[in-house]
């Protein structure tokens, strides 16, 4: 009997990988289809990011840098939508750009169009899309004197200073640069965010919050701990937390239940794998 139990436990470690894929699929799909919700505590770093946005006054300018592509959109796009919802609710002026990958601009425009429409915001009056310029450090340093050094026109090809929003936010000197930016929001899937912090925060003192894919989140915790960034949204959980603080229920909140189910499944599989290994040792 003991032998049979040990053999059964050992066999658990030899589950066909296709069964594991099927289980992962079910653990992901069922909570999404059933629209299951679970309460989640909000992380302090997301609360801090939310407060940094919340402190801004109507008319203040935020610069959003969408440095990601479709491959990381399930994590970063809900962040963008939640932050834009917050910004438009507070009547902030939004500038959007990217300098990492062109696809980031497409994702950014998609998010802007969706949320701006919801709040009845107008292009050129409430928000502007600067466009895409590669070059990371060169772009950042170039923007420090005048954004028009790098983005002489917007994404539509019209001169930046031809828009009423530009005249409003550039102030009396007619020059738009980092001094006019009250908060920089970096949505990052790679190294570009490090440069925002190391150059634009360290050199020009622009306050910033970061929304990062989960892979690079541990790296950004060091910047949060050192107070170089005011807040951090890490992965899908960060986006879900921000949605919770805003009181909205978007893709991130929905996806976190699947995330939870898959994590439980992975832990269970690791446990079974180890149990199977112990059983194998016993038998041999």
């Amino acid at each position, binding site marked *: 009997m003991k032998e049979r139990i040990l053999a059964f436990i050992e066999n658990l470690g030899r589950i066909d990988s296709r069964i594991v894929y099927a289980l992962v699929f079910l653990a992901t799909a069922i909570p999404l289809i059933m629209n299951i919700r679970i309460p989640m505590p909000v992380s302090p770093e997301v609360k801090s990011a939310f407060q940094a946005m919340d402190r801004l006054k109507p008319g203040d300018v935020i610069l959003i840098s969408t440095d990601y592509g479709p491959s990381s959109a*399930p994590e970063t796009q809900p962040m963008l939508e939640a932050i834009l919802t917050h910004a438009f609710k507070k009547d902030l002026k939004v500038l959007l750009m990217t300098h990492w990958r062109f696809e980031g601009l497409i994702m950014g425009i998609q998010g802007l169009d969706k949320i701006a429409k919801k709040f009845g915001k107008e292009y050129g009056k409430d928000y502007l899309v600067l466009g895409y310029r590669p070059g990371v*450090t060169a772009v950042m340093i170039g923007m420090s004197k005048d954004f028009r050094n790098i983005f*002489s026109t917007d994404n539509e090809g019209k001169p930046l200073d031809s828009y009423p929003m530009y005249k409003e936010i550039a102030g009396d000197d007619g020059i738009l640069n980092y001094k006019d930016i009250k908060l920089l929001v970096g949505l990052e899937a790679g190294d570009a965010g490090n440069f925002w912090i190391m150059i634009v925060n360290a050199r020009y003192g622009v306050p910033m919050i970061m929304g990062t*894919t*989960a892979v690079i989140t*541990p790296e950004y915790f*060091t910047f949060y*701990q050192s107070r*170089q960034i005011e807040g951090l949204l890490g992965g899908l959980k960060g986006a879900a937390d921000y949605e919770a603080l805003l009181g909205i229920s978007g893709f991130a909140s929905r*996806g976190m239940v699947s995330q939870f189910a898959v994590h439980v499944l992975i832990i269970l599989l690791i446990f079974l794998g180890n149990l199977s290994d112990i059983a194998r040792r016993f038998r041999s």
Partner: protein
Amino acid sequence: MMDLIGVWVAAFLTLAILSFLFGDNPVYKFVEHIFVGASAAFGIIVMLNQAVWPFIQEGITTQDMFLKITTYIAIFMGILTLFRLEIMNYIAPTLTWISRFPIAFVTGVGTGIGIVTGIHGYIFPQVVATFLPIMENNTSIIEIASNLVLIVGVLSSLYYFYFSMEQRGALRWIVKTGMIIIMITFGSAFGYTIMARVSLLIGRIYFLISDWLHLVR
């Protein structure tokens, strides 16, 4: 109608890529090749259209003499880079060394900026953030423990990479502590990586069951 076609094409491409889970197959290979080809073409067109051409156009037509000259220098440097192309090995093999000039320029500028920003924007603020008072008047026990973990973690991890002296006796315990801290860091980074990959899967499955199959309420 176009949206519908787009959703069906995207669903087919997603399923074709996921079919690799059951082994390599011609459908997967076909879609993989489409992805590589489309990405390369897209990247080239975007770079030319969004970065190279506007830069040249603006630099040449500007009234600012300084900008005009620097644009011509940049164009000249760009042309020199072309000497690195494979075809130049057949046309002018003795001239490929010319491409080293723009590479040296970019390396020099990149290193200069990298060193300054690295020290000013990363190392200094991080070192300052480590100089923590372990205990102050209103510090809670959790904060004290957190500060201690940070200080002990930084010092022991740094010492783990100190190889100029044999790590014996009591020093070995510092090394072991450093190793444990590093392992915990790797573990947390790996946990986040799993979360990231699962999020991507959720995104794709949500697309399939929502936009394609309309199963989501």
